Each structure stands twice: as structure tokens, then as C-alpha cells.
């Protein structure tokens, strides 16, 4: 438990460091390129909260959705993808510059969400 907390703290600090303009510099690792969300949309929480808490929010929601059938709740991976899919690739994790992939590559946190979940919003995916 203590280790988990420490890891979370470290991850949070790394993320905060990498996102603060004060540390901008030419490191070996390309800084995350964070595209703006789709225009006219409002995130479910402040960016600082989202950066730190989004894994917990999604992990909690996934159980409600899969087991309880509750869809359309506040935290939803589909809703993240709807707003944050890249305008160029149409995806959140297809290329290194896409929303989820760029930051996770920088923070060296490997996620396996997209081994099963589609990285594209519904309207793009249904196109032939």
C-alpha cells in the first residue's frame, strides 16, 4: 500500500514536472504534445485533477459499467476518446503524438487499455 502511494506520488511529480513550462528544455525525450480537446467541449474535471486522478476514475467506472450496466456516467473512456481523439489520426493512441500515447510515453507508463478498447470515437470507427 505504501509502495503504491509512493509510486503514485512519484508518477504525479513526474507528470507535474513534465507539464510545467519551467522545466521546458531540449531533453532526449520529446515532450508530450498535448492537443486541445475538441472545440466546444467541457472536461468532467479540472486538468490538474484529471492528470492525477484519471486512472482511478476510469478503473472505478469500468466495474460499474461492465457489471452494473451503468453507461453514460461521469467518467467514461469513450467520452475521453470522443473529445481527445487527434484531428489528424482520429485516435488517442495510434501515433506517438496522440493524446494518451504522447504523455504515457513521456512518463514511461505502459497502459493496456487500447489492446481491447478502440482508440477512435464511434463516428470515425463506423466509417468504411
Amino acid at each position, binding site marked *: 500500500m505504501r509502495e503504491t502511494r509512493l509510486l503514485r506520488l512519484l508518477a504525479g511529480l513526474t507528470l507535474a514536472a513534465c507539464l510545467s513550462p519551467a522545466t521546458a528544455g531540449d531533453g532526449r525525450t520529446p515532450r508530450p504534445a498535448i492537443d486541445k480537446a475538441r472545440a466546444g467541449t467541457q472536461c468532467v474535471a479540472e486538468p490538474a485533477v484529471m492528470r492525477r486522478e484519471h486512472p482511478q476514475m476510469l478503473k472505478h467506472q469500468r466495474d460499474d459499467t461492465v457489471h452494473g*450496466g451503468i453507461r453514460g456516467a461521469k467518467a467514461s473512456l469513450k467520452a475521453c476518446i470522443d473529445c481527445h481523439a487527434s484531428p489528424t489520426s482520429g485516435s488517442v493512441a495510434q501515433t506517438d503524438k496522440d493524446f494518451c500515447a504522447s504523455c504515457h510515453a513521456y512518463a514511461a507508463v505502459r497502459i493496456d487499455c487500447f489492446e481491447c478498447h478502440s482508440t477512435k470515437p464511434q463516428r470515425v470507427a463506423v466509417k468504411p
Partner: protein
Amino acid sequence: MSAPVPPTDEERRASGEPVAATTRRRWLGAAAAAGASGLALAPGVRLIESARAAAPQGAAGAGANPKVRWGLLIDTTKCASGCTDCVDACNAENGLDPRPTPTSAQWMRKVEIKEIKTGRKSSVPMLCQHCAEPPCVDVCPTGASFKRVDGIVLVDRHICIGCRYCMMACPYKARSFVHETLTEQKPDVPRGKGCVESCTLCVHRIDQGQTTTACQDACTRAGHGAIVFGDLNDPQSEIAQRVRQAASVQLRADLKIDPGVRYQGL
């Protein structure tokens, strides 16, 4: 001198002290904790179920309704031999391989059966039977295989370790294992390598308030109308009226696992 012994509830009651309030409070606290962790308060009574029953149902996003038992009625006398519209629709709806190989996942398949003595042939769509007592759930070592309160049997891919015990346990061969890395999944139907999967009764549609499955739509569109989806618990629903009027069977009813899929004309 002996240590003072705290009075028992009976002694407190005799002296007029309030005892009921404290014990009731203690019991409620324990009950709330038990309910929150999904434990039974009494046999068959759980807080989570009474809370869900009290919540408004039927609307999209309300969650699975414990009063509902989703099921299918398949009329094999209307099912055309060689027609695979339901299978194709299932594959398209759920993002399965449109041209399946022997190792592709298969949620629905057509089985042609023949009674040897009479030579009578039937064409039967086979899929997860959404049992009330699912053997796949019994054997799952991680709890990934589960039954929703509305009777839909699912695999939680977040928990599935791909051991395939459930595939062995299923008497209907309804489940498939995903052997290879997948791409281009449907946003509503996440699927991936290393997990077992099967028919979900189009749970993503049902949760959004739709009342049909992809296979039923395809069968109706093809003019056969052999598949009816609905709530077996609702006496007014088409499926409940049909099973009340005409003879239908559950496959391997001898196993007493009470499938939610029933067949007519077998």
C-alpha cells in the same frame, strides 16, 4: 475487590437505561457495511438489489434491472437452412472477423441437426444460452465470468486471465478464445487477445435502451422472424407470451442450469 462488570442488556433494561438504541445503531452499522460490500443481509435479501429495485428503471444509463430476465426465443421451424444472416449481423455488430477462420472468435454459429430415425432436419442458431446457473461462472477462478442481475452472462475482460476453464465448462461450446492481437474494435465492444468471450445479448444496445439484438434485427429483415428477444419476466412482452402459448425447450434442460435461450420446434 473484583473489577466492575458492565451491566448486561437485560440489567440495563431492568434499570430503565436505553439499550435498544445502541444495539440497533450497532446493527445498522454492521448491516450497512455488509450491504456495501455486497454481502447478504438475509438469505436472498441484499441492500444493493433493493436499492436498484427502488431506482427508476428502463431509462438509458440506469444500469441493469434485477427484475428483468433477458432471453431469446428461437423458432427453428422458421429458421432457414443455409441462411447465416444472424451470424453475419452478430459479427458486424460486435466487430468480429467477417470471414472467420478456424481460430476466429465465434459468438454465434449455425448448427444443422437431423433426427436419425425420422430424417427430420432442423437448422439451429447456437449461442451463449445465458443460463440462470451458469457453469462458466462456477468454474471461473478470477470472477471474470459473471452473471448480471438481468440475467446476461458476460466476461469481464479486465479480470479474465484467459485460462479457458469456462470454455471447458460450457455445455454449449458457446465461448471463444481470442488468440491474436486485434485492431479496429468497435468502441462499444472492446475485445482483445488473451481473453475468452461470447454472446453478450448485445448488452451495449440494451444498456442504451434499445430493445432488439443484432441477430433478431437481421432475422426479421430477412423475413424469417425466427428470433425474438425480450424480457422473460414481463408477462406482457412478446417473448413471454410466445413461450406461454407455444411449446419451447431449453437445450440440455437435464443439466438444470436454466438457460435464458429457448428453442421452438425441436
